[in-house]
């Protein structure tokens, strides 16, 4: 089977079928990253589709010095951030903010996990609220560290941030989650 690099080269030459092995290898992982970020299965699936469509359209701009998996992850994270923001904006338009409301609570109530056992559903709901309350960059760094098991170096390369920024962002995310969940 062609390597990820060969697939990206083929995509850059306009060979669309090279997307299939990439999807085969990265679908499940990118889906979980997206799900950890947007917290609903439907949206996460849309994010993954967006990401592969963008990979096809942007393959010519892929820098061969980088890792294909990092590049795909970055696209998926950006798609997750965009999709989440669009959804939040749409919800805000449909329904004005009630006073003192937690803006994302309505997103959580529309979230997934309804078919899970009670204990798992409770865990999921608590995490939904706490994670959705994190600003975009903190959530992206935390998800890559604790759901995608990336090292800080890898996160810096995936998100195009300095290592120090990744550390301080992770620290802020952890502090905020500790306050929300501990």
């Amino acid at each position, binding site marked *: 089977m062609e390597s990820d690099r060969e697939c990206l080269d083929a995509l850059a030459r306009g060979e669309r079928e090279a997307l299939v092995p990439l999807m085969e290898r990265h679908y499940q992982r990118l889906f979980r990253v997206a799900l*950890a970020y947007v917290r609903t299965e*439907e949206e996460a699936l849309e994010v993954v589709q967006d990401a592969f469509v963008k990979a096809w359209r942007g393959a010519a701009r892929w820098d061969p010095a980088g890792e294909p998996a990092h590049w795909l992850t970055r696209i998926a994270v950006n798609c997750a951030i965009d999709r989440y923001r669009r959804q*939040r904006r749409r919800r805000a338009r449909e329904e*004005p903010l009630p006073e003192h409301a937690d803006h994302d609570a309505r997103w959580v109530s529309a979230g997934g996990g309804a078919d899970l056992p009670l204990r798992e559903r409770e865990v999921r709901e608590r995490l939904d609220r706490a994670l959705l309350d994190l600003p975009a960059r903190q959530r992206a760094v935390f998800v890559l560290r604790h759901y995608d098991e990336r090292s800080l170096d890898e996160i810096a390369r995936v998100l195009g941030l300095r290592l120090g920024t990744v550390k*301080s962002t*992770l620290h802020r995310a*952890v502090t*905020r989650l*500790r306050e929300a969940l501990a």
Partner: protein
Amino acid sequence: MIGHGRWERRVDLLAAGALDGSERAETLAHASSCPRCRARRAEVEAVLALVADDPVRRAPAPVPLDALVTRVRARLDAPVPSPAAGRWPAWAAAAAALLALVALLPRPAVVPPPAAAEVEEEEAAPLLEQMERTVRREQAARYLSEAQDLLVTVAGPSERCPRREEHVDVGEEARRSKALLARRAMVADLSEPEAGGAYPVMEEVEHVLREVAALESCVRRGDLEALEREIARRRLLIRIDLAARELMG
């Protein structure tokens, strides 16, 4: 000598598995002798144990690979809007239409009889005015829509200010407000009768944008919450939506 705040930061990173080498060893040694840091480490580890239990980590993809491939292919095969329609703002499209119209107008003879030239100008003037009015209304609708995006961001979760407890960073929002207020001056040509019901909304948006623009980059969370309540009290987000729709006809 490391201040205790910095030990806490290190302890958080230690629990998150983000320290190594001498930093890790020093932090482990400190945490073993400091009850406060030990308790903090235990708290962070409990949170991360909850994350490790998150069912999301084991969630199977909701559709099989074949279905994903089919969906992505369908997206790639879907007709893409022409670059002109996708990228050009409506006012540019209107301007292009105007140019095309002018090009199609009957060309005057080399020395047109004065009466014929006046007739052409008289016919073109109302059309031109109407197009200019449309452009002004569309600019105002875009301005409102961007202001709405900004206010949603203000009402959403913000980054904390490093080193200032209970403060949040709104520097980016203040900068964007200033840029939008500059844009507001450009759509000032839209008169009250032309803007109709959108006019009071534009006035209120301008008022709130001025408040955001006047914020320092680090503000107390309470101040921001007061602003959020003000946005909610005025029902500004939904009214912007209605006003933008009215402007777009």
